[in-house]
């Protein structure tokens, strides 16, 4: 069985700095996979490589067996990788509903002319989009706030909306960059349930970056630990977290 995501010796250097150096990992379909490491370890850079924001200077990565190295962000999203951001990037002046509908952009199409002339395709497609967007918002308990401006949502809900928007692009692989950042323990617990729910109900493979060890040990089945761009440890979560090297990287000597 081929892995959903496979990276082979993936890396990028900025000038002399090797931000990510030889990252190799394999994520099976339907897995909840964690990517952890101290600040500056290259986790977000790895996400930027996987989503085409940066082009890798070494190595390759494959989604469902298809090589995606060198593709741009838009192509990679169309191939099935969607992400959220560490510092929330919502469409602030758009409504909550429109944020999700922007995510449905490539899944539900009609032309600009059909939109301007209000042809039947417009009404039909917009109705489908509304229906699908509300379904997604309901999963995240946001349907009641659908007409709010995204910027008026409380922080925790903004994080959830970002996940809903990413899911709207119907990806095969979802990358979550610190989904629990800034959340209180209750919200984190709720988020863990939601992530599990998404995995089970959307048949999703999820790779997440997180500092909150409770969340990581609670839901990730496998993890990779990065330190200074290189892989420090890899494998089953409970074992890796006990690894003396990992403890040392986090807590120092």
């Amino acid at each position, binding site marked *: 069985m081929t892995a959903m995501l496979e990276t082979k010796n993936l890396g990028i250097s900025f000038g002399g700095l090797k931000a990510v150096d030889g990252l190799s990992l394999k994520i099976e379909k339907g897995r909840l996979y964690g990517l952890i490491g101290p600040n500056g370890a290259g986790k977000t850079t790895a996400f930027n490589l996987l989503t085409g924001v940066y082009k890798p200077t070494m190595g390759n990565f494959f989604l469902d067996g298809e090589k995606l190295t060198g593709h741009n962000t*838009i192509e990679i*999203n169309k191939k099935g990788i*969607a992400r959220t951001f560490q510092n929330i990037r919502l469409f602030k*002046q*758009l409504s909550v509903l429109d944020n999700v509908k922007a995510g449905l*952009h490539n899944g539900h199409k*009609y032309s600009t002319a059909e939109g301007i002339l209000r042809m039947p395709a417009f009404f039909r497609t917009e109705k489908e989009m509304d229906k699908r967007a509300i379904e997604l918002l309901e999963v995240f308990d946001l349907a009641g706030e659908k*007409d709010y401006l995204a910027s008026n949502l409380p922080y925790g809900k903004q994080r959830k909306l970002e996940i809903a928007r990413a899911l709207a692009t119907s990806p095969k692989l979802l990358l979550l960059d610190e989904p629990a950042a800034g959340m209180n323990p209750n919200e984190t617990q709720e988020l863990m349930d939601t992530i599990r729910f998404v995995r089970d109900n959307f048949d999703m493979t999820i790779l997440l970056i997180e500092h909150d060890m409770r969340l990581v040990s609670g839901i990730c089945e496998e993890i990779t630990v990065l330190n200074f761009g290189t892989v420090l440890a890899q494998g089953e979560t409970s074992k890796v977290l006990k690894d003396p090297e990992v403890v040392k990287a986090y807590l120092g000597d």
Partner: protein
Amino acid sequence: MKNLNNMNKSTKKNMVTYGIVLAMFIFCVVYTTTGMASHLFRGLLVPVCVNVILAISLNLTVGILGELSLGHAGFMCVGAFVGSVFSMAAEETITSVWIRFPLAFLVGGASAAVIGLLVGVPVLRLRGDYLAIVTLAFGEIIKNIVNNIYLATDVNGIHFAIGVESYNNITFDAATKRVYINGAMGITETPNDSNYFVGFALIFITLIVILNLVHSRTGRAIMAIRDNRIAAESVGINITKYKLIAFVISAFFAGVAGVLYGHNLSSLVATKFDYNYSILILVFVVLGGIGSMRGSIIAAVILTALPELLRGLSDYRMLMYAIILIVMMLVNNNETLQMYTQKWFGGLNIKKLFTAAGSKKKGVS
């Protein structure tokens, strides 16, 4: 009534905008047909329509796409000249003004859109101040090129020249010579087809197209790019494509406004479409509220009429104009004053009538 409450918030907002334009139109019809309108008022009607169309179309670039463009008058210039030349050339072949004039709008708008596309491809790679500077330069370039174009026909065919020297080198058959564009002297024989009926019809068309665009899949993509380019890319929205669509449609309607402008005056010169005009259009948009079509319309009407109404002040006219501009901006953003208006006119609920927040509360729950 229930139907009205269930109506989408944005649809409601749009209806108010259409309503305002319709009310303005009815007022103009009543006022002019009853003979109360002064000569000045009649003369202002078409320029007001031109400026309203310009303001709405620039708002698409500035408010919806979120990019500052300072070359809008350049696209208007292209539309005005192409439209006028078309009308002059077609005057004998297409005698019906009902066919010729709409065609002139299409030709003028399309040529402005083509120039918009040519300018947009390199320019839209830039952002913010850089984009503003380059669009400003392009506007001036277009103006200066048009200012030096000579176009004439005679029995031998079409003669085209850039620069007065090369024009003077052409030998014409004097009997059949007809000058279309005479360099800095511009065009002087455009048929005066414009009137405020056509103007208002065009305002409605512009509004319908742009509001429908904004509230569609394309508009959502454009606004997503404005709000967060990186996130828009991450959900698979093609940045270049949608920026260009917005920019080109904006240029198209600037061209249409140019055609209306060109057919209103007996002489059309390129120097009119300078940097000051671009800034004036931007002032309509900024003063009316960036992104608010209704605001742009109202600001364009007031600021077009204002210099004429202040004519009695002669030398102090532009001084007063500037003071009124500053006062309007201060008043619009003054919280204390808004509080007082709320207090005094709260019962009238002016705010509720005119803002989205008011109409939303009725719809939800």
